[in-house]
């Protein structure tokens, strides 16, 4: 049969998470079809059609799907399920929200946040904040899977799949989108940035995050944070990196004024290079950092900025 990947997008552009999920899907069950559920999302469908390994793109274009609300998404996916033996979504807040509903209705367990596909039914997934890796075997029948996108390479863009319209499923009419408050930034998104500079409680205020932003702009980096910095109101919730926030694996992760709690490490320890600035030389972050600087961040960050300027950044 085939696998169905539920696309992550904002109705205008297709997110990188989709291309990575397609790579995982192709290892579970080829060919791969992609479902783009959205509103006025034609451009997204076209982008999905260009991804290598995609045989067909299904588009459900209706206002009902504009925000991928869980109940209508469940109904839509269930209407398409008979043709597939695996349903996959990236482990974004969207995928995590609607996919377990599909699994429950199919009476199968969901395999959450897979890191590796060992065979069509065996997978590796992290447990205990990534401090252990479980190899799990799903039962016979349909597989329902969310994918940790940092663990898979993005599919290339040399494809040309057919795009096919599918009709909307009936609206369960039990929930309604009311509004949203999205963080606006010119910087790259946390989950696709090559460089991330994150601040923790040591930053002391939201104001002080400007120090990190100046460096981020020089390096084309995204700005992230620890839970403590979010809880303190320094930065919005979508900055949080960690076990219960975003999982990232950039080329370079710079942790500033972050102690390195298990829950934070869970979200960034697969970064290629880790640098840490902390005034406490005992801070656990230094146990995993490739480069550690024991210093007061309020002195070190301006110095770093000056050095970057000197080098022409």
């Amino acid at each position, binding site marked *: 049969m085939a696998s169905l990947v539920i696309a992550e997008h904002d109705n205008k552009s297709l997110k990188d998470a989709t291309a990575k999920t397609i790579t995982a899907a192709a290892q579970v069950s080829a060919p791969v079809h992609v479902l783009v559920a959205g509103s006025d999302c034609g451009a997204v469908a076209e982008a999905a059609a260009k991804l290598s390994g995609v045989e067909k793109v299904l588009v459900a274009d209706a206002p009902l799907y504009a925000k991928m609300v869980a109940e209508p998404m469940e109904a839509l996916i269930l209407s398409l399920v008979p043709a597939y033996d695996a349903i996959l979504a990236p482990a974004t807040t969207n995928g995590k929200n609607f996919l*377990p509903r599909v*699994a429950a209705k199919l009476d199968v367990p969901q395999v959450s946040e897979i890191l590796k596909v060992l065979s069509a039914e065996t997978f590796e997934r992290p447990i205990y904040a990534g401090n252990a*890796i479980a190899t799990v075997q799903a039962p016979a029948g349909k597989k329902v899977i969310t994918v940790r996108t940092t663990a898979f390479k993005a599919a290339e863009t040399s494809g040309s799949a057919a795009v096919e319209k599918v009709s909307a499923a009936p609206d369960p009419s039990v929930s309604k989108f009311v509004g949203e408050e*999205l963080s606006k930034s010119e910087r790259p998104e946390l989950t696709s940035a090559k460089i991330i500079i994150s601040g923790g409680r040591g930053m002391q205020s939201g104001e002080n995050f400007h120090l990190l932003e100046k460096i981020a702009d020089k390096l084309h980096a995204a700005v992230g944070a620890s839970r403590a910095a979010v809880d303190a109101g320094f930065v919005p919730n979508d900055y949080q990196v960690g076990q219960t926030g975003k999982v990232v694996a950039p080329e370079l992760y710079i942790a500033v004024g972050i102690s390195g709690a298990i829950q934070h490490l869970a979200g960034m320890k697969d970064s290629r290079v880790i640098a840490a600035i902390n005034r406490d030389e005992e801070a656990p972050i230094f146990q995993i950092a490739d480069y550690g600087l024991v210093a007061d961040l309020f002195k070190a960050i301006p*110095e770093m900025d000056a050095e970057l300027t000197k080098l022409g950044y």
Partner: protein
Amino acid sequence: MKVIVPVKRVIDFNVKVRVKTDGSGVDLANVKMSMNPFDEIAVEEAIRLREKGKTTEIIAVSIGPQQASETIRTALAMGADRGILVRVEGEVEPLAVAKILKAVCDAEQPGLVILGKQAIDDDSNQTGQMLAALLGWPQATFAHKLEMGDGKADVEREIDGGLQTLEVKLPAIVTTDLRLNEPRYASLPNIMKAKKKPIDEKSPADYGVDIVPRLKVLKVTEPPKRVAGVKVKTAAELVDKLKEIGAI
């Protein structure tokens, strides 16, 4: 309106787990266990609803071994009214938990079920959503703010891009995120009072649910370890090193 709060007994969030050398799982012997932190937030939210007169009864439910009754006691000491312990030995997966909770909801007819968004041991992030699907109820996951209305609730949710507000018809499922509230500590008098609150003991068979795990764990291993690198002396040296290796 009744509120049900499912609470899971898990390894304490401060404990660093050790993987057993035989690959069969993680070592939980003599390890501190606590209520899943997201479930504390769920209990707190239920209590705040009662303080606002929005609920009449709070029922804490745990599916687990005998010791899970301690987790229920913690919820009762915080302010829940009664508990239900569904006794099982060994691991129960989210789908089975959701099925048991569905049966509890069928019996208790709550207006709201507040769960944690994620158990910090299995990191599944599934149970609330599965329960919602099995009941055919709407869900508002990753709640940042909850406001009860007439036959409906407005829930602000933490999503990848920021915050989103949904209106859900009641009965509904809500799962908690970190910023929903700061859970209270139980006071000594309330801990004493909690000892007298009732906990009903049940078995999965009472609800007709088969709990044999469907997802087989073949082995559990340690992730690749990172080792500490070098210390640099100045910020300038840090920048130079990062440039040298092509990281910037």
